[in-house]
């Protein structure tokens, strides 16, 4: 750590080399810790702010939805699908539980017990986040127009580039007609 040039220029200085080492190490440590301390708030300010974090849950009245219909609401800036499935759509989803699925899940794992008609999903394609259109595709569930992902009536990925099923958010039924998401 001791710079020989400095000591050579001042051979009779008699300075204790360990003091210079200490100053070097202290200065470098202060620069490293100080640099990290300054960088921290500048990186952290990029993360979601307090007001964004506060808008985390939303309630919805299900009586507005007819069978076979889907509503799209805004949840955390993303679309949220609430779909009132018909019996035929539920049957189609259950029938494929044993099919070869890229992201295997049974239909029962994707809705609340006894509420098979209600499917609540985050409406962002798990590929690159486009909003899939309802009722389209080879499986009559959803079809993503951006890169051609096909989802079935349970929101499971069946064909295309998306790696996983449409995400089921955290939600609860407050009553038979009211659901709270988030």
């Amino acid at each position, binding site marked *: 750590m001791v710079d020989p040039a400095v000591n050579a220029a001042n051979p009779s200085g008699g300075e204790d080399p360990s003091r210079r080492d200490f100053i070097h190490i202290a200065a470098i440590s202060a620069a490293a810790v100080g640099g990290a301390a300054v960088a921290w708030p500048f990186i952290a300010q990029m993360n*979601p702010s307090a007001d*964004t974090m506060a808008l985390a849950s939303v309630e919805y009245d299900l009586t507005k939805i007819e069978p076979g219909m889907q509503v799209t609401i805004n949840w955390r*800036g993303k679309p949220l699908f609430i779909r009132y499935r018909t019996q035929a759509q539920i049957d189609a989803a259950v029938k494929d539980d044993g099919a070869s699925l890229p992201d295997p899940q049974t239909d029962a794992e994707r809705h609340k017990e006894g509420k098979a008609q209600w499917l609540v999903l985050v409406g962002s394609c798990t590929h690159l*986040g486009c*909003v899939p259109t309802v009722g389209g595709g080879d499986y009559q569930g959803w079809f993503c127009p951006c890169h051609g992902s096909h989802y079935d009536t349970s929101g499971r990925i069946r064909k295309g580039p998306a790696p996983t099923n449409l995400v089921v958010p955290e939600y609860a039924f407050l009553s038979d007609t009211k659901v709270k998401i988030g």
Partner: protein
Amino acid sequence: MSGHSTYQPKNAFSRWMDARLPVGRLVWDSFVDYPTPRNLNYWYTFGGILSLCLGVQIITGIVLAMHYTPSAAGAFNSVEHIMRNVNYGWLIRYMHSNGASMFFIAVYLHMFRGLYYGSYKAPREVLWILGCVIYLLMMATAFMGYVLPWGQMSFHGAVVITNLLGAFPIVGETITTLLWGGFAVDEPTLKRFFSLHYLLPFVIAGVVILHVWALHVVGQNNPTGVDPKSKADTVPFTPYATVKDGFAMSVFLILFATFVFYMPNALGHADNYIPADPLVTPAHIVPEWYFLPFYAILRAVPDKLMGVLAMFGAIGCLFALPWLDTSKVKSMRYRPQAQLYFVIFVATCWILGVAGGKLPDDHVIPHLSTFTFIDADLNSYVWLSRVATLYYFAYFLVVMPVLGLIEKPRPVPETISSPVLGDSDKKD
């Protein structure tokens, strides 16, 4: 490269200044007396044109920022305000939006020029890599600029591109949340994109200075790929290069003006005149034309992470190019086989660009269904993209290293001036 400075201050002030801050000397040595190879053709004028493009984008951009509102509620309306109310706002915005496309036309020609004449080969590796860095910065700047009008294409383009980073395992989601400043593309995203869109052009300008500096250290390449050996091989930058660059700029500006005045929206997308709606994705989402080849590569790969890696890898190949090309001969003028592969490569980039603008399942030859091969009809753009993607990578990873070792190039002239001065038995 220029060696001894020939600058002579002409009056008392310039002598006074030269002893304190020799700016005049720097300009004289770099852009007046600077020796350039005597055989530069018009493909060598795009460097000057690109400086002009950067200047146009910065000046028009500064003006637009005076009238623009970077907020999710106000952005779209402020752009309409610029178009309808601000004096000559329509002109300045069309110059800026078409200017981005012109910038990319010029940079692609500049890059193909470098590729053909071997301008990335020793000792110009750092010069080439700085150019690649500028290209990356240009792509980031253009992408963020396209988000600012907050139309449907702006919004959903931003969603798709930022989600690309989410493909990386473990850290992906953390990165996208950090980038968005929320759980989706929203107000915070727009604001930071505006801030960075304003910053990056000045970063580009800084790297351009390094790029020109590196150019002036190693000297310009030229169509023969043979470095100048004597004064007979060079001409002074002014008037020869300045006038040639000036003429090329004038022609380029005519093309630019044609777009601005006669078809200002030809390179854009109508859906971007619809205000952003996070709940509805446009039926056919495409990036701006200059990203289409990379978009086609992304979609050609059926796996999400591998697709993203292939897309970034396509740009990564450019950085590695100086070490992938094993040929001892710089210029493809003397490499007939390399010329063939180069022409196929240019065509491949074009095909990828076309395929990137179509739906993956669209038929290449209309009304003809062939058979399903693995996961899609063989007569589909997704398969065309796959074949083209394969060639794109093969060009860099197979053709470049192997061809340089096995091909027999034509004889290369001793000096730049020897073929010009009629040493006819040497020529070709």
